[in-house]
């Protein structure tokens, strides 16, 4: 691995009372790659990416983006630094429209006096951009861009969240189990989208329990176990069985994998 990692974490620790969710975890993401994170339930995957995306602040450890030390105090700061996240819970506001949700926290204002002084939203432009992006990524056929997110099906909602991340992410896109609740068809669309985003050169972190999916799209697989990075493996040199064996403690990882 010669390229500079775009995002690194070293020695992250996060405790919830007596539970140690992260126990000196490390993390590396390289430019342009799809990195899958796998691990048992409760291994600390979600906590890891929450720390990276500013949703929680780790108790210890440091995070570097582009080699610069960063300390995100809120998801907003991570977002402003170019890290977009599709959370396990989606983070959409059910009563707001699709367009409003897409632009939540980065609304466009009208040009001139009305935007500058009256802070008026430019609804038309936001809706146009939202519609265009949704179509462009071909992820879903939305009938009405003004419809409230709560009227969408689970798959459609997931689509909105993914498209939002893909549209605005400028450095890193993180997805926490984006396909867990999705059907075969909908999952496929998300996987296609991941390929799409990757082809635009953006690196992606994908958390998933679905081994075939992971081995299909991932360039490297980060195996998380008991709050730590156990090893990183190359899916072309290891089988799914190997990955599962490492992840569940059935087998010790090869020592070279730790530096893959």
């Amino acid at each position, binding site marked *: *691995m010669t*390229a500079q990692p775009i995002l690194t974490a070293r020695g992250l620790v996060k405790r919830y009372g007596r539970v140690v969710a992260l126990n000196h975890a490390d993390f590396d993401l*390289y*430019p*342009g*790659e*799809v990195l899958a994170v796998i691990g048992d339930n409760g291994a600390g995957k979600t906590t890891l990416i929450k720390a990276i995306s500013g*949703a929680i602040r780790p108790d210890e450890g440091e995070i570097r983006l582009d080699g610069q030390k960063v300390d995100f105090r*809120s*998801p*907003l700061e991570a*977002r402003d630094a170019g890290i977009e*996240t599709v*959370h396990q*819970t*989606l*983070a*959409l*506001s*059910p*009563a*707001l429209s699709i367009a*409003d*949700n897409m632009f*939540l*926290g*980065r*609304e466009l*204002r009208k040009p001139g006096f009305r935007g500058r002084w*009256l*802070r*008026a*939203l430019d609804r038309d432009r936001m809706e146009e951009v939202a519609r265009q992006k949704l179509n462009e990524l071909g992820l879903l*056929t939305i*009938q009405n861009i003004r*419809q*409230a997110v709560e*009227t969408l099906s689970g798959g459609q909602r997931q689509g909105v969240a993914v498209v939002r991340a893909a549209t605005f992410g400028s450095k890193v896109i993180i997805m926490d189990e984006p396909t867990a609740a999705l059907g*075969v*068809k909908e999952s*496929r669309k998300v*996987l296609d989208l991941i*390929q799409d985003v*990757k082809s635009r050169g953006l690196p992606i972190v994908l958390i998933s329990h679905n081994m*075939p999916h992971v*081995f*299909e*799209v991932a*360039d*490297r697989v980060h195996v998380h176990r008991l709050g730590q990075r156990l090893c990183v493996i*190359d899916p*072309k040199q290891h089988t799914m069985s190997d990955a599962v064996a490492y992840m569940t403690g059935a087998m010790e990882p090869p020592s070279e994998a730790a530096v893959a």
Partner: protein
Amino acid sequence: MSDAGAAPRKQEFEEVLDRSDQSVAAFEGHEKNFVDRLQHFLHGNPTMVPVIVLAISIIAFGFIAGDRFFSAFNLSLIMQQVSIIGILAAAQSLVILTAGIDLSVGANMVLASVIMGNLGVQMGLPTPVAIGIGFICGALAGMLNGFLVTKVRLPPFIVTLGTWNIFFALNLWLSGAQSIRSQDIDAQAPLLKFFGESINIGGAQFTFGSMLMVLIFAVLWYVLNRTAWGRHVYAVGDDKDAAELAGIRTSRTLVQVYALAGLVCGIAAWAAIGRVGSVSPQSFQEANLQSITAVVIGGISLFGGRGSIIGPLVGALIVGVFNSGLRLAGVDVLWQVFAIGWLTIIAVAMDQWIRKVSA
């Protein structure tokens, strides 16, 4: 970096997906009768519900209580009468939209008006300064609520139950429970009574106070619906965690909401001096709950994130129309209280019935 360009290895059963049906399921409306259609119409236009209730009650009381009720003067009088509760309901709505509740709005307002009176009349400060300080105190009191809600993470109900007592005690302490007489205000700081002035149009008497109420609602409507901040308020009320993860500074937004609500209470304090004609520390003790009543009758959900800010204006008017109509119809106070009790329940039940329909 390793060979990222390798062709994806789809699972075999996924290959067929390219041929799958890409259409979106669309469903036809199938309303059977008038009630169903009405229900659907109102579902699409929830703000219409209180408006219709208002229209019906005005007409009904026109029949029951006669011309005296239906006169331009009386209708404008109702506007005057609800103006303070209406402005407080605007403040209350902001908080309720964030899924909170503010039991302290009335106490906050009275405290601010006592401060304005003390400074402007008794200590002889220039009136605009006194009013300004009153505004600031209102906003600070609101910020205290917001701070306790966000930083100490207490339920808004508890926080404002506590500050209700606190503001009330401060009010009595500052005022010595003494009103400041109308004549003294006229002599010292007539500007304090600005919102009591009125203009007459064809028998109707519009006080500046009732215009202020309408203006405040109009401004809040713009802010909530046409600015990013307004969208954030709805998002925070809808699902706070989601809003936080989506990149909204929810704590900051919440503190701002409570502070703005406090500021609106401060403005209400000025209007209240005009309305009452004096600074009365004993007034408006029921205003906390009355403002909540107006908000819920206006169709804003106590669970946050749902409802239009215009609703509470209409809600306040509905309560005013009921009070006025029942009074003019000669109904005993007792039964007025009784009627308002049922009105609250029935109005919200109707609202619930309408929201039940899916779009």
